[in-house]
């Protein structure tokens, strides 16, 4: 008889694979006890043989199993011992993987586009080089209009007929001349004035808005901007005032202020007791609509314009306008946005 328990005991005490191999041939090989027992089966009658064979098979299987298990165990042990010797210092620096960034102006343009997209505005564009007519005259700012003095204009010719646009408003003219009412557009873009100091840069970014349709009145203008300002600053409540002003191409015209307070030198937009001007707007002047051949008996609407750089400064706490354009690697890294951080409505405009 095989002492099964003893065999299994010995297997479990095997020190290494070699010993286990020896035990395997000893217990299961040709000359093993169990093999001898199998050979003896022929001497038994059929009934006894059946019972005996099944019991032997059972024993053989148990031995095999215990050897296999022990083998796996020893193998694991060996791997672990190997790994123990092959450790790396994971606190070493990771391989370099440079991070790109999106400029705050681009990010804010995407944010604004996303906000206005929700209420049906589409994005329009126009050239940076403009005719004096589109930039001024068509916008109800004829030559000799003192409002022209407020725009320090870069010219590209001696006759002052070709210039770098001083605002995005000429795109209103281009859009209305090339299509049919209604119009519902926003126009982000570069604008230029030859003015350079602490708070002015010769190039900056504006966003123009234009909505022309039947029955669009000042209430719609107020509603539209109220929606925009809340969405942009991501606040539920914001103090806002419309203050009468003057732009040649809108009438009535207004400037919009929002409330803010200072906290540790930072501007917190919302319900403070101070006012900050953020944009200009108004009902499109009938003369402008006439200049682009729109029937003013049927159509009217509003326009607005705002400084994108300034909005970016306010929202993201950037102090110096000029730093936007200085391409300092450190600044871009600090104020730039991850390219995967695409402003969307469902995920939130900003993180």
């Amino acid at each position, binding site marked *: 008889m095989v002492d099964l328990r003893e065999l299994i005991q010995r297997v479990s005490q095997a020190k290494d694979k070699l010993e286990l191999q020896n035990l395997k041939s000893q217990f299961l090989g040709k000359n093993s006890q169990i093999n001898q027992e199998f050979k003896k089966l022929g001497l038994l009658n059929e009934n006894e043989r059946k019972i005996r064979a099944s019991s032997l098979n059972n024993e053989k299987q148990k031995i095999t199993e215990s050897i296999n298990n022990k083998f796996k165990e020893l193998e694991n042990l060996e791997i672990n011992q190997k790994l123990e010797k092959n450790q790396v210092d994971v606190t070493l620096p990771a391989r370099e993987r440079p991070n790109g960034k999106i400029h705050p102006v681009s990010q804010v343009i995407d944010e604004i586009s996303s906000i206005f997209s929700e209420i049906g505005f589409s994005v329009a564009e126009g050239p940076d080089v403009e005719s004096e007519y589109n930039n001024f005259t068509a916008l109800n700012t004829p030559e000799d209009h003192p409002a022209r003095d407020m725009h320090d204009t870069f010219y590209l010719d001696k006759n002052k007929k070709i210039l770098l646009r001083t605002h995005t408003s000429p795109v209103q003219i281009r859009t209305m001349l090339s299509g049919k009412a209604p119009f519902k557009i926003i126009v982000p873009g*570069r604008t230029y004035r*030859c003015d350079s100091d602490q708070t002015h840069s010769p190039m900056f970014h504006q966003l123009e808005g234009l909505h022309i349709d039947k029955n669009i009145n000042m209430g719609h203008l107020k509603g539209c901007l109220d929606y925009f300002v809340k969405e942009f600053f991501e606040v539920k409540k914001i103090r806002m*005032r419309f*203050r009468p002003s003057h732009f040649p191409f809108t009438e009535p015209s207004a400037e919009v202020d929002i409330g803010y307070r200072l906290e540790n030198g930072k501007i917190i937009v919302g319900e403070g007791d101070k006012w900050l001007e953020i944009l200009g707007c108004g009902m499109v002047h009938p003369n402008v609509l006439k200049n682009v051949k729109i029937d003013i008996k049927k159509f*009217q609407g509003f326009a607005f314009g705002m400084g994108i750089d300034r909005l970016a400064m306010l929202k993201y706490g950037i102090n110096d306008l000029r730093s936007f354009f200085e391409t300092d690697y450190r600044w871009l890294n600090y104020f730039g946005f991850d390219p995967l951080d695409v402003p969307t409505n469902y995920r939130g405009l900003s993180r």
Partner: protein
Amino acid sequence: MIITLSWLKNHLATSATLSKIIDKLTSIGLEVEGIKENHGELSDFKVAKVIKAEKHPNADKLKLCEISLGDNKIIKVVCGAANAREGLVTIYAPPGSVIPKTKLKLKVVKIRGVESHGMLCSESELNISHESDGIIELRNKEKDVGKNYFKSKGEKSIDISVTPNRPDCLGVRGIARDLSSSGLGKLKKHPPIKINQKFKNPIKVSIKKEKDQGCGLFGSVYIKNVKNIESPDWLKKRIISLGLKPISAIVDTTNYVMYDLNRPLHAYDADKIDKEIIVRNSKTGETFEALDNKTYKLNNNMCAITDKTGVLGLGGIIGGTRSGTELSTKNILLESAYFFPSSIRKTSKNLGIDTDAKYRFERGIDPDSATLGLELGMCMILDMCGGEASTFSIVGKLKDERPIIDLELDKFFKVIGLSITIAEIKKILTSLGCSLKINGKKIKVLPPSWRPDIKEDIDLIEELIRIKGFDKISYVRPERERSKETLNFKQKLFHFSQRAVASKGYLEAVTWSFTDSRIDKHFSQGKKEIEITNPISSDQNVLRRSIFSNLIIYLKKNQDRGYLDLSLFEIGPIFFGNKPGEQQVVLGGLKSGVTNRKSWDSKTRNIDVFDVKADVIKTLIELGINEEDLYISNKAQNYFNPGRSGSVNFKSPSSHQLASFGEIHPGIVSNLDLKEGNVCGFEIFLKNIPEPPKKYRIAKRNYSVSEFQKSERDFAFIIDKNYKAGDVEKMIREVDKSLIKKVLIFDVFEGGNIPEGKKSIAVNITIQSMEKTLSEKDLNEVSQKIINIVKAKTGGTIRS
């Protein structure tokens, strides 16, 4: 426009407080910009703290100081004083202020290449003492940082930003009228004058009838036997509160009336006038010395006030020294005239003169105010200086050009979205000076003479809502409905490419559309520069012809700061002409330095043309172009190294260029003296990216993959050294498009046992059928085909 409370109360009976008045002004469109205390020329000087003082980068003896006025702004000032140092509290003069010692008006200037916004002052510069060694050191004044250094003597003045359509509010009375209209008080009536004007004005005045005559009306009064004195305190105070300098009772009177009624006056020393006054067009070459002590040379057709000798002054713009009043003046001629805005504007622009009078005339003076101005001016002068006044002489006549405007009640509702009653309309417009005729819902309105801006019904609607208040309009919530796509294809490309390139490790820069012609010429491929007529400085004098022109300047600046391994890009317009539309959107990137600088496990290597090629190709694929459609050749722009650059075209070399990439030409790198000379760049020309005819999801082929075993075979060919690897790759792919799934060149080498002028090129080819597992025979057949074709086309051999 500056007013004071006491001055305002001369015209407005009100019990409202200052803060109430300020709020009201702003809410009716007269934006209050600030409350100032003017005390003459010294009001600009502020107590400031030096936050940082470091050596000027380009000058040993200068310092670059960052100073604070206590808010969160930092002002950069270049200073030559040895004692300028961090933490020092001193006195700061901002741009625009006038230094008492030198009388120089400060401007923002570049000092040795660095902008300085104002200056820090020594005691001598402020006329406090003769101490000129270093800037003032204020001790224990930290709490005063941001405050005026010189204590106030004037009254608090309200600084109002008056929009160009409101000339009437360039006078205190106009502002008072608006306030009274808005319900904040009652406009006082002008007191009647009782002056005995016994004699006739002895100086004859005539306005010459000629084309483009700039003067429409010339009123004057002669006052004899005056004793010009220093103004009394009350007048001096008001003049100072305006930020002006008191000069004499007569001059101060003319300034006072100008600010009181928006009615410019001019006083001549009558004894210095040669016989008579003739208002006529100037002739080219005539000169005169103006009150700003400059001599002006006139052109044809400028509106000149002249006498028998010559030009006395430019009407409505500036008077001359020859006829100026002095304290010794005995007899004066006081002028109250009307000059046409367009004439004023033309002349002042031409000569570059800006004065308070010019500012008012070009916006439009009340044409009916000549007499009122003479009355007030005369009374004040008689009061202060004594003397006797002549009767008024008024020469010329102005046509009343005011329109009668039809205003319909419903129009207001249509534009504003708010209703208004006839009674309200009547009340508001009347209080602003309009005359009304009402017939049911139709109203005829005659605007007052002082409101040249009111021409049509929309102007009246603006007046009505301005006074009624914008806050009365309720918000209409926007509809969330989109009938058109927000972005078109090109705009989407812009956004995709921007984020695609940023995701490859590039920082996005936004630089100016103009640049330095000396840099631009490196990237303009010999094309003419696109000049700006009036550039802000000589290093920003042309529109850029390439994104690289600015980007490389900033690359250099960052390198100079010690950052050598850089990746920058910009997406924006470049220009190819100076007409509207002669521009295109380009994305340009620059990369400099090495990868794995100081790495513990990877080898440091120079970034090279294949780094930027990878970025370009990957981006183009992300923009929706099939990799097989990218045709790559070595014909790139001449600002790249000709042997290490490439061009990507759509499908064939003759089609539009999608992109370029390569090493920036070493000649340019050395010319610009870059610290790290290893610079590569790429450009993607967005306008050449083709718009697919169908949406991507629709154009995509049905998904199918092979169920059968794939095989790989390696080949090595020996071909001509100049034969392009890309061409070999392409010809192999085309041997059997259904079986050859992938072609990968994995080794290229020259020398060794390879014959001179040849190279070995090793290719790994993946072969797989959609229909069956390929047998050894099938594979050999394809292989042989590949070998034959490559041999035939390249004239090369297979390596055994």
